[in-house]
């Protein structure tokens, strides 16, 4: 009963966020609480921030989850943690592809080409590569225990080397992403925001909604994988 209320609540929450993100008007001088200010150079295209950034954020959350479950697997040798780690990584891959595709389409209209090797684009590309490598490694090992151990180790190694991009990127290139103009700090993979308060509210509401949605999907995925395993062992 409790979970049903939570699910309905989340659906309502996300519906409200999506309506607000798409429908709230953008005006040059906002007066009412629901009016967003127009950002020069972005205009209506600024609305992507309510969807695209939470997707990228969820990708990172999923990767951290996969890594943490990997660590717990190594500590306990309980294969259920491996199952959770894979489920987290699978969903992370999906969100990663979504973030890449939406960002790429947006880049075509805002920057003129689908791909520009901007620091954040490079970072999401590397994350995509890591997810790909993670699953390639898993498919190359037959023994369950071994597969779980190796993929957990790989996830942890990837998890500690990826943050280096935060230091490497600003030294090599300047950023194109909104928020990185003019300030040298902005060229890293992490975005810094200066937004109108009402936009910030919708943005964080969306971030929260996407994160909860991820955990809901994760829960479903773990339960369905467990059932699949049960069925396989019965056959």
């Amino acid at each position, binding site marked *: 009963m409790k979970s049903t209320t939570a699910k309905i609540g989340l659906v309502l929450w996300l519906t409200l966020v999506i309506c607000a993100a798409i429908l709230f008007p953008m005006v040059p001088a906002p007066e009412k609480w629901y009016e967003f200010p127009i950002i020069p150079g972005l205009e209506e295209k600024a609305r992507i921030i309510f969807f695209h950034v939470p997707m990228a954020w969820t990708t990172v959350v999923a990767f951290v989850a996969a890594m943490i479950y990997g660590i717990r697997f190594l500590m306990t040798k309980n294969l259920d943690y491996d199952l959770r780690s894979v489920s987290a990584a699978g969903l992370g891959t999906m969100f990663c592809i979504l973030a890449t595709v939406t960002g790429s389409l947006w880049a075509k209209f805002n920057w003129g080409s689908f791909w520009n090797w901007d620091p954040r684009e490079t970072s999401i590309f590397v994350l995509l590569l890591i997810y790909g*490598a993670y699953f390639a490694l898993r498919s190359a090992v037959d023994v369950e225990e071994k597969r779980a151990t190796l993929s957990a*180790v790989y996830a942890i190694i*990837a998890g500690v080397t990826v943050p280096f991009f935060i*230091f490497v990127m600003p030294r090599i290139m300047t950023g194109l992403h909104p928020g990185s103009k003019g300030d040298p700090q902005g060229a890293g993979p992490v975005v810094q925001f200066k937004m109108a308060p009402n936009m910030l509210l919708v943005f964080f509401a969306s971030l929260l909604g996407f994160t909860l949605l991820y955990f809901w999907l994760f829960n479903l995925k773990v339960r369905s994988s467990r059932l699949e395993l049960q069925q396989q062992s019965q056959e």
Partner: protein
Amino acid sequence: MKVFSAPAIHVFLKDSHSEIRTRYALNALLMFVVTALALVLFSVGNDVVGTDVLSGILWVIIFFSGMSGLSRTFVSEEERGTTATLQLIARPTSVLLGKLFFNFVLILSLNVLVAVLYIVMINRFVILTPSIFWATIFLGSCALASSSTIIAAIIAKANTKGTLYPVLSFPIMLPLLLTVMNATRLATEGAAFSEALGEFQILVSYTVVVVTISILLFGFVWKD
């Protein structure tokens, strides 16, 4: 400290002896480097190529030739069936450190060779700040050896040993490769040594982080 490090030195010596006897990795690496360099020379021809492109190509050669030699360290143990013996006689940390040091010596000698050949054969590739260049070669070798050793340990336990190595290592090594390429570009532009300090800090911290995490995790990979 002596108890801790002596087996690691023995593992290193064992690998060096077997390498000197068979020269498998050495020959493969040498041929790879010569082939890659010749290909670059043929494709560049008489064209005028920018130094940033040339410093990129240098590390592409190093990355791919390292791949053919460094990935062998643990696979060769599996192929010869000597893994069990090594598991019995030495602690995981000693095995890792021995292999790491062997890989480091291998990649460092390879890198020095590639660098010298590259400077001699490609006229447009002029190093204006040698101190930056050689420091980059040295620290880059440390970083490459550290990440390639643990990945070699992982793929030795997988079924498709050869093909998986580039797939797994590229995303892990990308921050390091971007850094060494940038440092090499600085060396060709004649930047002062202090300008490249940031790059060196990244390389050193990368090596320290990867070696530490390797020591922590190697036991799980190594023990069946």
